[in-house]
């Protein structure tokens, strides 16, 4: 897979981000690997707490540094090893080369600063421009993301914007320095369906226009099927399966991926699918979990699953799975 594509924009390998809590160590991300190619959209899906956000936040070290730590692995951005960067060097990349869009547009903007100031702040942090240049650039960005009459709106406060408009402002801030990689952390979860479509269309448009790569963190599989080029499926801090979008939806190998897809409501009401039932009720996980993290809920779990985390099984150049039994199930 790596042999065919040129050097990926971002390459994460065996990344481990742990949180050292008072009484235990939370392995939020435990040895994940994935990469993002130039100009593609990589979707990261998984349920809450699967580590999909923490994995992406680790790129920019956006976690509480007093408890969280990257304990292992590497993050390569354009060939540069980000884990070796100082905090200050990371700050310089934030917003300029890699930006983020957050889940909650309602609370991701500072309520006491005008949106124009908030856009200008990023522009002026990374580019040597005057205050008025930054402001006209803010207006231009607001226009680009589809905020009507940006000349007036630039002086408005966040509470004067609707949720969808605020998310557009967030995108304007994220785009202000023309980044190479946009990390969208559930960008549409807090929005209603029509606005969701508009925002995703905007992100796609940005991607086409600027050639930006996108990491789309979501649990909305419909969104993934429409927008992503490739998909990484995560569960409990581990990657379960990674494949092109079409392979995930038509040829999923991992029991967890299949369970996820089966849990989607079907349009055909009469069709009785084994939906959520396939994901069993959580069994008590062993204290020291050496085996597969999905073991306790896996319908195909066998004894050897508890002994060692599965090795990577490649199906094709772009499709790989971490499961001991995929060969058997591939044809199920």
């Amino acid at each position, binding site marked *: 897979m790596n042999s065919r594509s040129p050097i990926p924009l971002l390459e994460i390998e065996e990344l481990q981000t742990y949180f050292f809590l008072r009484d235990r160590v939370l392995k939020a991300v435990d040895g994940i690997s994935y990469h993002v190619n130039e100009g593609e959209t990589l979707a990261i899906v998984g349920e809450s707490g699967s580590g999909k956000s923490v994995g992406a936040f680790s790129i*920019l070290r956006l976690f509480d540094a007093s408890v969280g730590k990257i304990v292992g692995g590497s993050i390569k951005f354009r060939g540069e090893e980000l884990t070796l960067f100082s905090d200050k060097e990371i700050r310089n990349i*934030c*917003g300029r080369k890699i930006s983020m869009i957050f889940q909650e547009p309602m609370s991701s903007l500072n*309520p006491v600063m005008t949106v124009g100031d908030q856009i200008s702040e990023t522009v002026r942090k990374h580019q040597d421009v005057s205050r008025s240049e930054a402001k006209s650039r803010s207006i231009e960005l607001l226009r680009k993301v589809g905020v009507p009459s940006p000349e007036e709106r630039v002086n408005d406060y966040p509470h004067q914007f609707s949720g969808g408009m605020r998310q557009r402002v967030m995108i304007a801030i994220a785009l202000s320095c023309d980044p190479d990689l946009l990390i969208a952390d559930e960008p549409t979860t807090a929005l209603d369906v029509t606005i969701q479509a508009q925002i995703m269309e905007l992100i796609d448009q940005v991607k086409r226009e600027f050639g930006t790569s996108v990491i789309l963190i979501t649990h909305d599989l419909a969104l993934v099927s429409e927008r992503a080029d490739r998909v990484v499926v995560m569960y409990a801090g581990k990657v379960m399966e990674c494949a092109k979008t079409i392979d995930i939806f038509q040829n999923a190998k991992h029991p967890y991926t299949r369970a996820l897809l089966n849990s989607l409501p079907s349009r055909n009401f009469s069709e009785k699918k084994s939906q959520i039932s396939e994901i069993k009720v959580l069994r008590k996980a062993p204290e020291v979990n050496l085996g597969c993290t999905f073991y306790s809920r896996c319908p195909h779990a066998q004894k050897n699953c508890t002994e060692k985390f599965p090795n990577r099984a490649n199906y094709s150049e772009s499709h790989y799975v971490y499961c001991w039994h995929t060969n058997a199930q591939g044809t199920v």
Partner: protein
Amino acid sequence: MSKVDSLNMGGEPSRNIWLDAAERFLGNRLAVVGLVIVFLFVFTAIFGSFLAPYDPFEQNLRNTFKPPNMENWLGTDDLGRDVLSRLMVSAKTALLVAFVSVSISLFIGTIFGLLAGYMGPKVDTVIMWLNDVTQSIPQLLLAMILVISVRIPINNWIDRLYSDTNWQIFSPTGRGWVDFVIIFGVLAMISWPSYARLIRGQVLKLSEEDFVMAARSVGASEWRIMFKHILPNAMGPIIVMTTYNIGTAIVAEAGLSFLGIGVQPPNTSWGSMLAQGWKVWVIAPHIMLAPAIAVALVRITFNFLGDGLSEALNPSSGKI
């Protein structure tokens, strides 16, 4: 009408959150009364020495202990000085002490609060420990101990400065300002913990907000996050507490001066006027009542103002 405006979600032109707050504030009658009295107080404090009907220091031993009358509206004191004039001139002391000491404690408290909330658990522990120790000693007692223990060394030091420089402001007659500086410092020392505690709490709360992480994600420096994103969002509670604390500082200064360790003659203060009046309370109650009422009124007024601001600056307080 304001309700209609806020429901009009369309392209209503810029409405600043501060304007909304001002509207809420003006809807609170008690707070507006408070604001008016505070303005009067500040005006009197600044222009009192010009407005005073008599010289506040002029003694007239043939006209002592006069109850309020047409010539001396608030009567005269034991040395025949006009009580109203003294009251007006003393307002300056109250205002000066209140604003300067509150500013100093606000400054110290803000710095310590930001550091405690932001620099991690070790700094937090040290600062909050200092905070707890300071707050565990009764305030007036601590103030007395501090005043008494610094006054003599400072005066000795200024004596030396005077003999070295021969400047008039260091001379025994020209150093009335030293009392003020001591009181500013002491009152700041006893009141900074309340700010530090408040601001620390706000910082801890606001650091969790999404917009702080969003600012970090675009590369804002920690200083910028602290002063541009966190502190402005904590402004509401800080303003409210400052208002209350001005009232508290005025009472504290009056207390110290009443005990004789605050502002020294010939400077006047409501506290020293009280001290003068209480001994003759039975024969001339007006000498004590005038400053007592002034202190109480200003204190209550600042509390009203604080309540009004607290309601106005807190959008979740229920009133629209």
